[in-house]
């Protein structure tokens, strides 16, 4: 069996509530800034949750060659194009395009597009037959023809960001979209890594994009009581790992990376930013609404990823450091997630767990749902590159049960060589990726 190829990150881009380029977002993460504010995309004033972290002034103009080509792009596709083109440019692929587009693939964890909410709702209402308590099919189609548009309906298919990016970048290799709720883009990066490893592509663009900041998205999560309903300053609403945490805050945006084999990167003169060292994936297969309380499923994903990276979670390194330097937590700020994630990390690292800093940027950026894992993966790469750990903000009232090092409130300088990025989705999907400093 031939040696497994090493896979490196050579490009990154994001469009987030804290900004649309690597440096400005990173500096805001380092400054403990918050992207939360009252929702502007629709009138949420009477909803249980009235705030979110929105992308300010989304625009494709700086990124795509010809905006007209993507004239019907929804927010999901717009975010994705912005992030993917930035990653593509950073990797140097915009100026020197890949020689064989069929060796370049695409693996996204993109969410469904935004519903044409009001037109859809009014179509339904117009066709309602109170007697039968059903929508009348003939009235519905007539109302729909007048209200709904072909372009907006097609844009809701979850594989539309794939189509837009493939078109913009000329990608013709293996193309997948996975939609495993909040774990989707970590899974996409992990699966893209596996595709390159087995030789089905040389280069993969991977990441995620999502917004659920729309009436039915907020409704759905409010009904599940998963969102924070904090009544004060929205920037204080997301409180991962705090005792008074009351749910996550919705974010939106996209994160995209370019992955390739080390040989391919070096041959074309690209600079490796970091190495992807391992990927683990498991299903809780427990309950539709709850996570395995003993953290077994989450731990299984972490253990697989560490095993693939050749890291023993119970052994310190020769210089006495803990086995890894940082965990980018899923850390949603829901009661259940944060306590079970803590249990799972202890299950994996045992008595070394308290020595590993673990933070959640969701306190600052909100929860980008399907796109969360990709931006968090990128945060790990930047932590390695810049020797800084992003903080968990609003960590003022500590939960005595949660006794790990959550990098409270302020960013911290640290030597960072190995990071682990966790994502856990509704429905029991657990995914973990290990990122390591690239050393030639």
């Amino acid at each position, binding site marked *: 069996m031939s040696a497994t190829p090493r896979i490196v990150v050579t490009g990154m881009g994001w469009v987030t509530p804290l900004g649309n380029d690597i440096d400005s977002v990173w500096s805001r993460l380092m400054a403990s800034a918050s992207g939360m504010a009252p929702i502007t995309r629709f*009138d949420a*004033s*009477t*909803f249980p949750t009235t705030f979110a972290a929105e992308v300010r002034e989304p625009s494709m103009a700086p990124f795509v060659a010809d905006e007209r080509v993507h004239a*019907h792009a929804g927010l999901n596709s717009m975010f994705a194009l912005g992030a993917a083109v930035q990653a593509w440019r950073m990797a140097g692929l915009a100026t020197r395009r890949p020689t064989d587009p069929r060796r370049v*693939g695409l693996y996204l964890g993109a969410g*469904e597009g935004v519903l044409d909410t*009001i037109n859809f*709702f009014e179509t*339904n*209402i117009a066709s309602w037959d109170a007697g039968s308590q*059903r*929508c*009348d*099919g*003939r009235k*519905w*189609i007539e109302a*729909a023809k007048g209200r*709904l548009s*072909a372009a907006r*309906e*097609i844009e*809701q*298919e*979850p*594989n539309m960001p*794939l*189509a*837009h990016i*493939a078109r913009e970048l000329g990608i*013709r*290799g*293996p*193309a*997948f*979209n996975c*939609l*495993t*709720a909040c774990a989707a883009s970590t899974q996409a990066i992990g*699966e893209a890594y*596996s595709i390159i490893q*087995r030789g089905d592509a040389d280069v993969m663009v991977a990441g995620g994009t999502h917004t659920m900041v729309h009436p039915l998205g907020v409704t*759905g*999560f*409010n*009904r*599940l009581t998963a969102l924070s309903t904090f009544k004060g300053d929205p920037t204080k609403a997301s409180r991962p790992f705090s005792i008074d945490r009351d749910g996550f805050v919705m974010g939106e945006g996209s994160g995209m990376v370019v992955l390739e084999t080390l040989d391919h990167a070096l041959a074309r003169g690209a600079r490796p930013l970091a190495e992807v060292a391992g990927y683990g994936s498991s*299903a*809780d*297969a*427990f*309950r*539709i609404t709850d996570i395995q309380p003993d953290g077994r*499923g989450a731990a*299984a994903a972490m253990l697989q990823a560490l095993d693939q990276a050749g890291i023993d979670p119970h052994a310190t390194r020769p210089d006495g450091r803990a086995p890894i330097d940082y965990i980018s937590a899923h850390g949603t700020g829901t009661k259940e997630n944060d306590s079970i994630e803590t249990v799972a990390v202890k299950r994996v690292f045992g008595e070394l767990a308290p020595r590993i800093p673990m933070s959640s940027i969701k306190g600052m950026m909100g929860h980008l749902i399907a796109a969360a894992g990709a931006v968090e993966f990128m945060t790990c790469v930047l932590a390695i590159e810049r020797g800084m750990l992003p903080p968990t903000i609003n960590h003022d009232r500590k939960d005595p049960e949660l006794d790990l090092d959550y990098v409270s409130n302020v960013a911290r300088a640290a030597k960072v060589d190995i990071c682990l990025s966790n994502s856990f989705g*509704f*429905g*029991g*999907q657990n995914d973990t990726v290990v990122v390591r400093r690239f050393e030639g």
Partner: protein
Amino acid sequence: MVTGTGTACGFGLGTDALWSALCEGRCAVAPVRAFDASGFRCAQAAELPADFDIRQLVPKSYRKATKVMARDIEIAVGAADAAVRDAGLVTKGTAEGSPPTIAPNRFGCHIGAGLIACDVDELTAALVTSRTPAGGFDINAWGSVGMTNLTPLWLLKYLPNMLACHVTIIHDCHGPSNTITCAEASGLLSMGESIRTVERGAADACLAGGAESKINPMGLIRQQFAGRLCALPADGDARTAVKPYAGEADGSVLGEGGGLIVLEAEGTARARGATIRARVDGFAAGQCACADTVGLDLSGAAEDVAAAMSAALRDAGLEPESIDAIIPMGTGIPSTDAAERTAFQSVFGPRTAAIPLVTIMPAVGNCGAGTGALQAAVAVRCLESQRLPARLGASSTDGVLAQAAPSSAAPLRHVMVVSAGLGGQVAVLILGRAA
């Protein structure tokens, strides 16, 4: 290795029902029962039979959870039950308390899903509580009170990964799991993920496939807007409505259905004495360059479809001469048919006109993410029985062997399955006759 198949479609539950109906040349397309679709361009579809009852297909202890299953989830759960039984697997879902055949952490699950449409009757019953005096939607009333008319777990009916969530809980699959959402290509792409997962040793067996129902107002209107439906009034002749590869083809009909295939490592399958139903020979995936930006018009994508077919042949270590039949998309959508036809001609050359194309969409409709698994299950049956099912459609199909024909015996060594769907993703699977 394929050790089992389970499908659900207009012909009912189980691959036996699908296969015998296809061989008899039956058509599951009929006027839509779920709602009054008479105002749509295509007023007929291939719905699951009325007696499909998900409550009978889950363990008693799980019946309560069927309340939060969208139709798409029901199809996946029903198909999973049929698949594990067909493969002779003991799981928590088929025999709770008995030791499972496959260790839970070695059992994976990759299921393709569509954009699950919400039940408009259920949603609208809640929406009408929040109306403005003029009859429009009052978002303030909705935010304060109206939304409480939706059941708290409402969202969980419609997350695409809930197909895999329910299936993994019922059958206790803790291994690698994923949900692929690439329209009609989802099913084969999911199988590709399972194949690679088993190959790299991360699982001993996986449930792979997909499920979807587009038979709801939103599913139908999206396809109508996309120009993908044929004109078929409620009293039209369903048997000749979809005419793959024919000059007079004008679109597809919709169906609901899907399936799960049990893909198992050869060692595990042989060790437990499983019946090997077919061998997985090759797989490949790619992205088409499309005439539009959203991947609707595949008319110029023949080269990309052909590239995926050639890559799958290379992966299988086979020459084109080894392929004895093809299960194509065969949607009857002219642009997709054109891309497939040209791709077949470029890969198979003059022999194209002699390779039987097994088209199933005229009989079971376009089942979206469920399509690939239905195609694969039919391929398995073709290889097992050394027989081609009957074909519906046109009486003449220029350049390809796809015209209406009865079932016939045929020596089949390898069958190629092709899915190229909306969005431009293409996947190709090659299955071989079990030795």
